[in-house]
């Protein structure tokens, strides 16, 4: 019997994998990939908890997270296009305009 704990542990592991990716990646596109991983792990957690208690709110939240993620991808990629036209590269280290 798979209890809730396993799902939550899985969600945590996936989240940390995504976080490592976010922290490590220098290519902006790949950074977005890692962000997607994090969002998905949160989805799993919501759905699992909702299913465990029979509560529909978990799935609802997951829906909205999917909606938000989709729009985020759209806008994010648009921004990446603009950045690419300006810089010619997608390197994160080139982006240090606000260097203090």
């Amino acid at each position, binding site marked *: 019997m798979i209890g809730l704990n396993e799902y939550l542990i899985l969600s945590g592991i996936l989240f940390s994998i995504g976080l490592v990716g*976010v922290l490590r990646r220098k290519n902006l596109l790949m950074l977005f990939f890692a962000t997607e991983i994090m969002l998905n792990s949160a989805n799993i957690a919501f759905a699992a908890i909702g299913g465990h208690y029979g509560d529909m709110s978990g799935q609802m939240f997951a829906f909205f997270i999917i909606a938000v993620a989709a729009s985020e991808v759209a806008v994010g990629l648009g921004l990446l296009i603009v950045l690419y036209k300006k810089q010619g590269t997608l390197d994160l*280290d080139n982006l240090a305009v606000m*260097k*203090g």
Partner: protein
Amino acid sequence: MENLLYIALFAPLVGSLFAALFGMTPKNLITGFVTSGLLFISWLASVLLLIHVISHGTVSANMMEWIGAGDLTIDFGFQVDAITAVMMVVVTTVSTVVHVYSIGYMDHDKGFNRFFSYLSAFVFSMMILVMSDNFAGLFIGWEGVGVCSWLLIGFWYHKADVGTDVNPSISPSWAANEAFIMNRIADLGMLVGIFLIYWNVGSLKYDVFFEAIPSLENGLLVAIGIALFIGAMGKSAQFPLHTWLADAMEGPTPVSALIHAATMVTAGVYLVIRANPLYDAIPNVSLFIAYLGTFVAIFAASMALVNRDLKRIIAYSTLSQLGYMFAAAGLGAYWVALFHLAAHAFFKALLFLGAGNVMHAMHDELDIFKMGGLKKVMGGTYLYMGLASLALAGIFPLAGFFSKDTILEVAINEDTYIIWFVLWVTAGLTAFYSFRQVFLTFSGNERYKEIGAHPHEMPTFVLVAMAPLAILAVIFGLFMEPFNEFVTTILPSYEMSHETHHIAWFFIIITTLIALSGIFYAYKKYASGLIRDKELENSFVYRLLTNQYYIPKFYGKVFAKPYKEISDMLWNKVDMKIVDTTVDAIANFFVVNGDRTRKMQSGNLSHYLNWMGAGAVVLMVFAILASMS
């Protein structure tokens, strides 16, 4: 009556503040007139108070409470009893004359306004000193006169050292510092005394303390007495704290007349007189004071015998007479000491003002070997100085005769023959050196022509201003009996025993004889002119005396130099290296850390995300810890 008290006390302060408004402006005669006028008002109030106290007794007033901290209450309280009334009249008389004199003396000086401000401030401090009814007020006045004396001695602070081996002239700022620092050292003793009084009695008021004296144990009283006397030693320049008085002559002459003849140096004597119940209870300390006073008397007189500086001779004679006063007070004859204080104030101030006339005429030349024959040009000054010197020497019927001879009589009465003998010899020396100075300055060949000076007499109003002092110097002695009756309402009376009364006339005669012989010897040696004796001047005793027994050099080498070296060492090693380094290190720590933290702002997204992650971890740790506890 209280209003008279406040007027007498605060009129000099008003004058000082008024003159201070003009401190930065060029000379303005109005400051001189206003301050002199206000001092005259103060003198009037003092005289009226004196009359009132003679007929009605003590006047006391409590202005306001000053310190009320737990058990300690000190008020701004004033009382005018017989001693205070006498001191007030003496101080205000001499001060008024000196103020008017200064209008003439300082007329070419750039710091004219500043001078009057300081002078009036000094008088105010002195009035607080004598009018206060507790030791704290006394101490305030004590410090006040110290500060004003420092300001006034160093009045020409921009003058540098002029080192001549004939008449070494020290810079006024150095002399001022020396005076103030020596006073400060003595004030430490006085503070210890005041602390002891407060600790054991619980109050600093005179009457409370005096009533508590019989109940205190003898060792404690001896300690208090010695401590307070150390303070008096500094202020009245007794040995070993005497070197500042001679150097204080670097100040303007009116300052010397007011401070170092009549008022500040007598504050020590006033303290001993005021604390007479204390000193009556510890006869050993009193006897020591008397012996010390006697020693100072002859010590100072010996140094005045050979000095060439006009003002220093008079300074040493002040020192000598202070020794007389302490001898009298130490032997228990307080009213005699007070009487001598008053008489001395008058004729010593007159002497100093006369010296000021001479200096003004000779354009600040002080060496009496370069003067001579001035009586043809400055007749009035010659008269005044001659009168004052006669009073100083103690010739009947001038004031000094009565006071000095009474002191000698007291010495006989107490069977302290050594004191009598030494004071008797000092009387002769006093007469000799006073008239040596008078004759060398005014009689004989006119040596001033060699240095090209053109002396002239002071304006008449100055001579008129000096007249009251001259009159008092002459007639004050006649007031001795009423003075005795008046003052012994507060002070213990001192009667001569019967035998002393019988043989008193004998001692009077031999005292007068030695004084006259001193004058005669001086006349014979100097009246016809100066004949310098190279062999005498190079002899050991002569050189010892001219260098003031080498005591200033000794103090410099033993105390001043090591102290300065310690100060330098502490400054360089401790202050600069340790304290400054620590403070700089703290500031440096912040700067360096700020610099390092600045690198956090790299503009790099990945870097920021790293920090975000780290921050999130920390917060979550705290959250978990918080929810667990």
